[in-house]
């Protein structure tokens, strides 16, 4: 946790944009641009005026170092900030400065040189009501500006910006000896060629108390220095300390120039109209690091940057560290998809997902995470690894295995044939392949349940040792990644790579599926080899990949967030489904079923490779996602089929299902609320056995049972041959207590 706070120091969120750092004034360009984008010339002018002192002059004479720094020029042309500043000046309705009613400070500053730098310093100091005397050796103010602008342009500006201030101006007054001046501080602003009175070095505080040096090759630099030095002089007058002005900011910002959309300026000659100015402001990228906010669904959904998330998580895990009752981030913590996108897009590699997983663990250890967020999936893990589903067998009894196929729990849950056909194929290329069904422990990982994760991993390790340390073949990237992380000693391959390497030739069928978009699962990010193998196989099956997502993204399943945060889950799924109009080709059972569940046509790669679910063309794409109950049934069926087909054994009939009828609407409702038929049956059995039920006039029975921590209610009718389920619902509160 502490570590994350440390790494956040590398976060670039607060870094200034390139232009602001190049600007002698450090102008807040993003803010200026925002105002201009809204067409707010007045407020843009106000910001510019406060920053540069003499806006009409700076907008004309600035030598525009920002343009050289602007990242936009990597693509087309730098943002025309100079012209935008001129537009702000031209279109501001009221250009007068603010008037400050402050008491006189009673300190006197002598400024030598009434060029732009000296006047800028005078402007700030007089506004703060210091007494200022300007000494100018010539007979006019403005210095170098006479060579650059028309006199009416800058003289009027000096007059305007200094209109409320009083200062003493001594023209034709050359100072040769500073000792002749009586002042509390002296500012030497005599220009690059002027008298420095024996002081050398850059602009700043001199080595003599009370004497300060101006400087700057360009008029804009001189003005910027004058403004900055006014602050340094004031600090000296208040504290007696000779401090140097703050050094100009640099930026660590990194931006991907390749991602900038092409948009050259509409006009480059002459002043901009209001509309053109708004349009030009629109070209600015307002450079700021927001890769995570842009790409991470969670951060986008909550509108929170990693820094904000860290703060909220901190008070959630340690309530009482701050005032207030803010354990606000519980649901946020439980909503991370653990897709690694945040880490992969962050130029600093900041891993917010890992931080959230660690936070999930802390909350879980404290018992502070609401149990329903993960309860269903933990029960599902238990089911997958229980006697009904789990099967670990070498291909031939007693023989050692060179490989073992670990299809993962979801693949068989989606369609048992995905597993049986793959296994049949693997045996054909490598007869010493064992089968190993069950769950890798992902739900425990995501729930932050360390103990359960450890025991699941240990169990897998033991069984792997019993099989004689074979190489794993995975069909699911998530399983593979969990093995890589927790069972690094197990060498592994992806099924699709094995097939590609063995030159697998899938049957070429249905032309309707010819154009597909590949949806690479998150967590496959670092595996271009896998991406390639999948594409080769797809094309061999006669399909053309016509679309690709830019990044491997999470379909929404990751982290099993659908219960903890249904609206967030729905939004992620909607976004993913909309990324291409074409049917998706997936190679993760979760992706396939999540999309199918949202009505998005989606194939599993194995549908193509083994000609499954394909017989009626596009129908496969619309194959309904199995309900939670069907997924369980499929996993039971898988074990039976494997035993029967590959080992010539009949599975003992362990289950004892109630004859239960229900309408499709009721089935849909159960699925929506993730109520398993098995749970419904358990309630009915309980009611029938105990007689604990209520009846209405029509004979409809109502009863309930708490299973685990959840309480289930059913409304059913006994029929001649069993039961008819009319309704079922559940709640998280438990009955009793006081």
């Amino acid at each position, binding site marked *: 946790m502490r570590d994350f706070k440390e790494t956040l120091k590398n976060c670039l969120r607060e870094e200034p944009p390139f232009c602001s750092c190049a600007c002698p004034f450090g102008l807040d360009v993003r803010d200026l641009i925002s105002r201009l984008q809204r067409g707010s010339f007045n407020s843009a002018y106000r910001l510019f005026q406060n920053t540069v002192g003499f806006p009409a002059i700076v907008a004309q004479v600035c030598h525009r170092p920002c343009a050289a720094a602007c990242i936009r020029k990597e693509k087309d042309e730098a943002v025309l900030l100079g012209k935008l500043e001129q537009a702000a000046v031209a279109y501001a309705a009221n250009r007068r400065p603010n008037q400050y009613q402050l008491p006189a400070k009673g300190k006197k500053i002598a400024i030598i040189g009434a060029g732009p730098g000296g006047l800028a310093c005078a402007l700030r100091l007089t506004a703060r009501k210091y007494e200022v005397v300007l000494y100018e050796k010539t007979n006019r103010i403005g210095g170098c500006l006479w060579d650059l602008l028309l006199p009416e342009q800058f003289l009027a500006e000096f007059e305007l910006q200094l209109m409320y201030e009083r200062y003493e101006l001594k023209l034709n007054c050359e100072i040769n000896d500073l000792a002749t001046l009586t002042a509390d501080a002296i500012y030497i602003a005599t220009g690059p060629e002027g008298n420095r009175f024996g002081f050398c070095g850059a602009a700043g505080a001199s080595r003599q108390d009370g004497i300060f040096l101006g400087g700057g090759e360009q008029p804009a630099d001189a003005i910027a220095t004058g403004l900055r030095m006014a602050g340094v002089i004031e600090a000296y007058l208040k504290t007696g300390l000779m401090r140097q002005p703050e050094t100009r900011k640099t930026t660590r910002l990194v931006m991907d120039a390749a991602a900038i959309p092409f948009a050259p300026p509409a006009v480059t000659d002459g002043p901009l109209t209001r509309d053109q100015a708004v349009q030009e402001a629109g070209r600015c990228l307002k450079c700021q690091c927001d890769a995570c906010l842009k790409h991470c669904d969670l951060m986008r959904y909550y509108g929170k940057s990693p820094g904000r998330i860290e703060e909220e998580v901190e008070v959630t895990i340690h309530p009482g560290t701050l005032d207030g009752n803010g354990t606000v981030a519980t649901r946020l913590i439980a909503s991370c998809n653990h897709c690694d996108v945040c880490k992969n897009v962050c130029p600093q590699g900041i891993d917010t997902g890992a931080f959230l997983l660690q936070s999930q663990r802390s909350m879980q250890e404290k018992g502070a995470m609401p149990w329903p967020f993960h309860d269903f999936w933990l029960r599902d893990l238990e089911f997958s690894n229980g006697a009904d589903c789990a099967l670990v067998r070498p291909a031939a009894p007693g023989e050692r295995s060179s490989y073992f196929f670990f299809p993962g729990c979801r693949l068989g849950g989606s369609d048992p044939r995905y597993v049986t056909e793959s296994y049949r194929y693997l045996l054909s290329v490598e007869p010493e392949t064992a089968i190993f069904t069950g769950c890798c422990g992902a739900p425990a990982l995501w729930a932050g349940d360390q103990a359960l994760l450890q025991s699941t991993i240990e169990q897998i390790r033991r069984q792997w040792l019993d099989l004689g340390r074979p190489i794993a073949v995975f069909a699911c990237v998530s399983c593979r990644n969990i093995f890589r992380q927790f069972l690094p000693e197990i060498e592994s391959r992806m099924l699709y790579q094995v097939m590609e390497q063995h030159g697998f030739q899938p049957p070429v069928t249905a032309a309707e599926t010819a154009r597909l978009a590949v949806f690479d699962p998150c967590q496959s990010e670092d595996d271009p080899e896998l991406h390639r193998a999948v594409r080769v196989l797809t094309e061999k099956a006669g399909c053309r990949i016509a679309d690709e997502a830019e990044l491997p993204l999470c379909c929404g399943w990751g982290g099993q967030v659908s219960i903890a945060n249904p609206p967030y889950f729905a939004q992620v799924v909607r976004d993913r489904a909309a990324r291409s109009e074409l049917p998706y080709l997936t190679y993760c059972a979760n992706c396939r079923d999540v999309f199918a569940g949202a009505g998005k046509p989606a194939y599993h790669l194995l549908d193509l490779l083994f000609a499954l679910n394909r017989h009626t063309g596009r129908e496969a794409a619309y194959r309904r996602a199995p309900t939670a109950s069907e997924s369980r049934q499929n996993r039971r069926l898988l074990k039976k089929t494997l035993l029967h087909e590959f080992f010539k054994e009949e599975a003992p009939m362990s289950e004892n299902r109630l004859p239960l009828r229900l309408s499709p609407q009721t089935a849909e409702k159960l699925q929506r609320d993730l109520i398993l038929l098995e749970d419904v049956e358990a309630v009915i059995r309980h009611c029938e056995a105990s*007689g604990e*039920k209520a009846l209405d006039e029509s004979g409809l029975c109502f009863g309930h049972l708490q299973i685990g921590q959840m309480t289930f209610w059913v409304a059913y009718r006994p029929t001649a041959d069993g039961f008819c389920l009319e309704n079922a*619902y*559940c*709640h998280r*509160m*438990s009955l009793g207590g006081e």
Partner: protein
Amino acid sequence: MSESTARKLICYRCKVELQPEKTYFQYLGHSFFTDIPKCPVCGLVYIPEELARGRMAEVEQELEDK
């Protein structure tokens, strides 16, 4: 009152009508009560769907976000 909360229910074992009675619930370490139909003899309860999916679900969510 909605249809099912107004439903007349009989306890199967005791053959008496369920009557609204103050009942306690627990969730995430907090306790609540509300009136729900209960058998005056054996204490069998009935929670209508409206209550489970409505008020109860709201309170559940509030506590989870607390």
